[in-house]
């Protein structure tokens, strides 16, 4: 476990006041929007000061998105780990081809996760009202795209059943 805890401070550009604080060991929460920016620091976080509800909500939703995408990415790494792949019965003659294909599939999935994260993030950051943020948040949560690799097997099974 990493002992270094980073603190990400999010600032309201116009008021130049902090709006949100997020601490993390590994996940990168640095992202900027047209109306806020983030600063990474190792220092303790100050108390949030700005009352800008729209910006706070945007940052909160974007943080949720980054966290779940990190969890999904972790799931892909686990499922495609050497240990997991060894457990799949493939004859010796085909194993190297199998490993090459799974490596490509893993790469594609990870690229897709990153692409989806960027796509959702852009929409959230560009939102002009809290209603827009909530609408995009709902879309994200309900999206099958975000479930291309759901961290929750039960949800993944549900997606398969629905199709």
């Amino acid at each position: 476990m990493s002992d270094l805890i980073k603190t990400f401070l999010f600032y309201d550009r116009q008021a130049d006041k902090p709006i949100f604080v997020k601490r993390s060991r590994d996940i990168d929460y640095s992202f900027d929007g047209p109306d806020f920016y983030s600063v990474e620091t190792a220092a303790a976080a100050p108390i949030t000061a700005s009352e800008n509800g729209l910006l706070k909500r945007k940052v909160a939703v974007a943080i949720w998105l980054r966290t779940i995408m990190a969890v999904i990415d972790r799931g892909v790494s686990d499922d495609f780990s050497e240990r997991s792949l060894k457990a799949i019965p493939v004859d010796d003659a085909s194993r190297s081809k199998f490993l090459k294909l799974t490596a490509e599939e893993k790469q594609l999935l990870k690229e897709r996760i990153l692409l989806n994260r960027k796509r959702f993030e852009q929409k959230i950051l560009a939102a002009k009202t809290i209603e827009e943020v909530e609408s995009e948040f709902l879309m994200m949560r309900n999206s099958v795209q975000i479930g291309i690799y759901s961290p929750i097997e039960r949800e993944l099974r549900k997606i398969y059943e629905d199709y």
Partner: protein
Amino acid sequence: MKTIDTEQIRQYIVELKPEVRDFPLDATSGLFDAGALDSYTVIMLIQTLEERLDIVFDYSDLRAFNFENLEAILKLLKTKYDVK
């Protein structure tokens, strides 16, 4: 040092999803199978635990099996995050 038990974790989940109050959950009930947690609420629970217990989860611990039941969550908190 913060303290916690399975009932407190259950209360945090209820705060995020009030209908869970009526779910017949014990410490080993599957939270995902029961519908108490999903990919939305599990992330919110992670954030709630971080804020209330003043901890920061390690990325490698953000796996579904660590959150599959109240006992698993409690075990993770006690063994890795110095929560009693």
